[in-house]
């Protein structure tokens, strides 16, 4: 039947439709490359996926995200059905509480307790916001869910709406994700057409509407209250939280704000129960977490694993290490709000509390692997520059403090730093952490403080010896030609833009350090790897 002829689904007809769709879906998946459809639920095949437990990503790469029937055929909207016809609002909240799911956007606040807070507010207008403003550089799990399984987001939203007594939800998606917007727009339209969103969902007395709101390029809008300001049509500056947002949030109404990954777990918690959710993970951080395993790692990609897996297992077993001849130095978690964890701490379990203990955070789940050519001072500078750009300017310690820290780090990477600078960094870092209003300012110094803690020797090398051990800080590095390896082909001499290289054909070449501008061309073109960077 065509979309225009579609009649609204009821509880009964949804179950029938699912039954009807099953054979053709099975056929479709059996024929699909890279999918194993012999188990309880279809899985992607290959070594990269073996150790993963895919829940938030269970449909990613498996179903057609533009076809609601695909989602329904694999059990989609069964959780909503249960929430509407078999459970009271409080029972839904209790199930979420029992599951112990915590905010997977990074803050780790227990989702059930948040929902209870909104449900306990007097009846009236309440809002639900799904935060898809995934701004941490190096993290893209929310994009994957929104693009690859949009109905999981919508189903989770409707269940939440039912539980807290809300009839309206927003999904706030960042401007950099046009494909996610397209997939969600289509999914909302389809769900409305068949009566999975809108008035009297599945013939019940529950109505719920979802609309999309787009960001316009402001990292700070990932902060809950800044996001609300943005939806209300203002500058996205965080509010002072006199009350929790579940008491007074969007347009001063009780508002629940959940991350995309969190909300996409909800339907399965209701469908399969809290026990199944808890079967993975640790007692304090139950369930799974999606990490974006990227950077200098052989197998990069999205990885969903039980909470509590060690960094080592993730980087070396699933990611297959960094490749020959390189050494892992650190992983960076939590983006500009997180820290750099040195390889000697790689037996740390990946869960909310263990990461906080070693000065980093879970964050949204970006996990950038760095090797011995990455300078930790330069990485700290990179992140603080990001925070300088993205600070909204409301609080002085964040607005001015990040700028001063950036200046100091720039000085150090250029060989102009002093030991006093390191003290100033610590002071400013703690000041911003302790006295900023929102998470951005409170965590902006984490990349600096954590690298100062674990890689102080690198800072000292920059300060005292004017040397960058990783060879990444150009002002401190020098290119030299190893005369034992050089074959005298002259390729570097021809490519040098400032004629800093001299030498005879078939004789060893030399770089004049005073003329060299450190562009690195010689290193790029050398056929035998004779150019060294120190």
């Amino acid at each position: 039947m065509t979309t225009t002829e579609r009649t609204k689904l009821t509880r009964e007809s949804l179950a029938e439709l699912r039954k009807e769709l099953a054979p053709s879906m099975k056929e479709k998946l059996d024929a699909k490359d890279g999918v194993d459809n012999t188990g309880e639920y279809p899985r992607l095949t290959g070594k990269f996926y073996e150790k993963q437990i895919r829940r938030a990503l269970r449909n990613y790469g498996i179903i057609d995200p533009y076809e609601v029937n695909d989602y329904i055929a694999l059990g989609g909207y069964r959780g909503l059905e249960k929430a509407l016809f078999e459970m009271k609002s409080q029972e839904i909240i209790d199930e979420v509480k029992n599951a112990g799911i915590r905010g997977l956007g990074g803050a780790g606040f227990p989702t059930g307790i948040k929902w209870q807070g909104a449900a306990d507010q007097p009846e009236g207008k309440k809002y639900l916001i799904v935060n898809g403003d995934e701004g941490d550089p190096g993290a893209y799990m929310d994009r994957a869910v929104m693009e690859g399984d949009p109905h999981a987001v919508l189903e989770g939203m409707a269940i939440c709406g039912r539980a807290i007594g809300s009839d309206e939800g927003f999904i706030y998606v960042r401007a950099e994700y046009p494909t996610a917007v397209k997939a969600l727009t289509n999914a909302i339209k389809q769900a409305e057409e068949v009566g999975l969103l809108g008035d009297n969902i599945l013939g019940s007395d529950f109505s719920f509407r979802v609309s999309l709101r787009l960001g316009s390029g402001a990292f700070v809008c990932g902060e809950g209250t800044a996001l609300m300001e943005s939806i209300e049509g203002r500058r996205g500056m965080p509010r002072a939280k006199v009350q929790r947002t579940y008491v007074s949030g969007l347009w001063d109404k009780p508002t629940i704000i959940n991350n995309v990954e969190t909300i996409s777990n909800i339907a399965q918690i209701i469908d399969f129960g809290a026990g199944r959710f808890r079967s993975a993970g640790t007692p304090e951080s139950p369930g799974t977490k999606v990490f974006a395993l990227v950077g200098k790692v052989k197998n990069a990609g999205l990885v969903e694993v039980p909470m509590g897996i060690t960094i080592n297992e993730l980087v070396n077993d699933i990611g297959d290490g960094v490749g020959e001849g390189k050494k892992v130095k650190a992983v960076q978690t939590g983006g500009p709000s997180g820290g750099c964890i040195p390889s000697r701490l790689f037996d740390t379990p990946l869960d909310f509390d263990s990461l906080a203990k070693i000065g980093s955070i879970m964050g949204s789940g970006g996990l950038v692997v760095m090797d011995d050519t990455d300078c930790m001072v330069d990485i700290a500078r990179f992140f603080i520059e990001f925070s300088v750009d993205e600070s909204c300017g409301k609080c002085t310690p964040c607005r001015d403090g990040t700028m001063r820290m950036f200046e100091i780090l720039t000085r150090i990477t250029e060989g102009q730093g002093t030991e006093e600078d390191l003290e100033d960094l610590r002071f400013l870092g703690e000041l911003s952490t302790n006295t900023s209003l929102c998470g951005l300012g409170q965590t902006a110094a984490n990349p600096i403080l954590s690298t100062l803690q674990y890689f102080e020797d690198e800072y000292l090398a920059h300060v005292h010896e004017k040397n960058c051990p990783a060879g990444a800080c150009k002002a401190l590095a020098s290119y030299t030609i190893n005369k034992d390896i050089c074959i005298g082909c002259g390729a570097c001499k021809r490519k040098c833009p400032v004629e800093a290289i001299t030498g005879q054909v078939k004789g060893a070449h030399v770089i004049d350090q005073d003329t060299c501008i450190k562009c690195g061309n010689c290193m790029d073109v050398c056929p035998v790897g004779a150019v060294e960077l120190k």
Partner: protein
Amino acid sequence: MFEFDKEQYKGELGEVQDFMKKNKDMPGALMPILQKTQNIFGYLPREVIEEISTCLGIPTSKIYGVATFYSQFTFEPKGKNQISVCLGTACYVKGAQGILEEFENQLGIKQGQTTSDRKFSIIETRCLGDCANAPIVTINGEIHGHFTKKKVAETIKELSKEGV
């Protein structure tokens, strides 16, 4: 200074006006209207901001206050070819900074600027979420993964050839 010709862009202007009329009573309408305008024109022309102000009853000063806060809104038209180098962490550790500098050197402009012949702009961008294929360069909205410094000259040459 770039002049905005209302006659020339009559059709586009009509589209924005329709969108504005349809949504003006929706709470928080300003952002979606600004986004629509930016989408259609590629920037926010002053003349259109004035119309938005009249329609929504929000002073232009307030609208500029909002628009300048978000990095995607711009007030000058961009070049024909828009290049952006992702500077997310994964791209950064894989050498994106060097690629950006190469574009800047070869085009003679800095990030955020447009060449005087309006053929090229280097647009600032945040992480595009395609980190597994880092480093990422976006050329006129199309994503190119595993980009290298060597591809820069070639890319500029290709883009210069097409059209005027």
